[in-house]
């Protein structure tokens, strides 16, 4: 059954949880009131999402659940990088089926994604354009002909508009089928265009390093991590890791890990009982020894003091 939903968020964690594809992890890197909007449209076979969020952040996307996914920016704005490559409204990232990606924005970002199951993507590619559209081994950035890209953008935006203003149209199976056909056609036209420039996102060594970096993080989801142990685990000197992180995350590993620890501490404070836990205990457990500095950093990132977070009732 076709369906659609439009939701707005003020909490990054809720936002990340609502995004369907992959395991989505989101780390906001600057202070501010977070707002995000997510439009999700499931047609019969084609699924699409439109995203917009207002704060600089780093997200990590893992696993696509057997679907062939593309994403593109829907509006120009501050830089939005996917694995170190700038996304533009004029280009499309084709993701591979089973890889992990970092995406980081330096401000307001809006973008859209579309996906079909891998088999259907291949079948449509074959039927509509006679080309093989199974997902590439490494992510690929392609620049379609402007006319084809403009048509895809237009249709994608129209679908988003419908979801907001007239969701009942999208729920109608026949209308949904019509829209789906048009969207698939526009997408295949963009992807199959032989004149498209393509550019591999796999930048050799750095991609491998970032994947290992990610693996270490994933093996210790709830645990604070520090640079020495990470460098030791992935066998890369600090300098190289810093370069890779600058490229892929837009910030150094130290800052990224600090943010991660701040977020972990916040989560722990939220789940803790105020009468059995102290801020000091939580802060030191996540590696913050200079308590004054911790309070300042925490306050500047989350807009409230750690003790205020602790006092809020869990849930």
């Amino acid at each position, binding site marked *: 059954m076709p369906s659609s939903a439009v939701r707005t968020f003020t909490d990054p964690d809720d936002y990340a949880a609502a995004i369907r594809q992959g395991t989505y992890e989101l780390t906001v890197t600057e202070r501010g009131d977070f707002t995000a909007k997510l439009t999700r449209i499931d047609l019969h076979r084609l699924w699409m999402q439109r995203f917009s969020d207002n704060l600089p952040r780093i997200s990590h996307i893992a696993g696509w659940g057997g679907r062939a996914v593309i994403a593109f920016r829907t509006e120009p704005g501050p830089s939005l990088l996917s694995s170190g490559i700038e996304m533009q409204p004029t280009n499309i990232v084709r993701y591979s089926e089973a890889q992990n990606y970092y995406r980081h924005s330096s401000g307001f970002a809006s973008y859209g994604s579309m996906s079909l199951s891998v088999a259907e993507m291949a079948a449509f590619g074959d039927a509509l354009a006679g080309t093989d559209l199974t997902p590439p081994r490494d992510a690929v950035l392609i620049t379609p002909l402007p006319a084809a890209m403009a048509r895809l953008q237009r249709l994608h935006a129209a679908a988003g508009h419908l979801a907001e203003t007239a969701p009942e149209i999208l729920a109608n199976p026949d209308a949904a089928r019509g829209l789906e056909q048009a969207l698939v056609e526009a997408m295949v036209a963009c992807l199959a265009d032989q004149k498209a420039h393509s550019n591999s996102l796999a930048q050799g060594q750095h991609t491998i390093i970032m994947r290992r970096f990610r693996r270490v993080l994933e093996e210790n989801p709830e*645990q*604070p991590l*520090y*640079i*020495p*142990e990470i*460098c*030791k685990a992935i*066998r890369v*000197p*600090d*300098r190289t890791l810093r370069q890779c992180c600058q490229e892929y995350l837009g910030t150094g590993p130290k800052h990224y890990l600090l943010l991660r620890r701040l977020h972990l501490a916040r989560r722990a404070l939220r789940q803790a009982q105020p009468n059995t836990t102290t801020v*000091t*205990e939580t802060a*030191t*457990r*996540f*590696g913050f*020894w*200079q*308590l004054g500095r911790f309070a300042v950093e925490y306050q500047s990132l989350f807009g409230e003091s750690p003790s205020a977070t602790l006092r809020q009732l869990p849930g």
Partner: protein
Amino acid sequence: MPGSRASVFGEPEDFEEALRADGVTALLVTSREQFRARLTQISLDRLHLASVEEEVARVALVAVPANTILVSWPIGDRPAPVWGGIEMRTGEMLTLGPGNRVHARTGGSCRWDTIRLPDKELLCYGRALWGPSFFVPPAPAVWRPAPAAGRHLAQLQRAAIRMAEARSGALTNAEAARGLEQQLIYALIQCLSSGPAAQETSAGRRHRCILARFDDLLRADASLGRVEFCAELGISERLLRACCREYLRIGPNRYVRLQRMQQVHRALRSGTPGAASVSEVARRHGFRDPGRFASNYRAVYGELPSATLRRSSRGITPLSLHRPV
């Protein structure tokens, strides 16, 4: 087991005992004031931190344990001990390699921090973080880290010490201890990545070893005089005097006398069965004239040797603030 200990000392002997794991083997007070020191120690998984505040001039022989590296730096712009004749200025650091034997002297009030860790760990993390060129010389060396790196390390250590003094419970959490350790290792390697600013010269090494052996001889045989020392060490009296002046700031005669006096003092204080008679103990430690000994003794310790022997209380005992190390 991670843990911490904060202590205050009124007796050099207890202070020496508390720092034994850091290689402090003989601590000799060289001025006549009442000894005062404050020590906070933190034991992590692999790192051992210590922060010291001392008030009285002293000389100590530091023998770094095998497979261990000792890193030290002054706190703020306060004077720090002079290790093996190396005077550290603000912003500088000192490393001592495994097995190094160094005399560390202070000229009065001083403040210093140390980190002790296995050399293999340091090298392993150094290579992981910095690359194969990371190197810490096996002999004493002075480092001049980038100001930001030095500050970072000092601040982290300060924060940990403060935490140990105020809220010791924070350090018994294994996760917290690991976090602290990782951050300290990172900060330490940032400091040491620039390479040493000055390394020991061959003459410096020779003099350092002469003094260490001088100390051994002094302890091994109470009857040796200046001439015998020089003969045993195979050096001239002039050189021995120069070494003592350079590293200890006092002449060999005075150093020997103070050392022996301290041995007597400790023997009397401990009240071991052999310490029955003052003159007997004094004679055993090479003092042949009991009368002169007694007056010299009083000049140093402010009481007659017989009073020390009678005193059952041990002055200020270390104030250990519960929690395990």
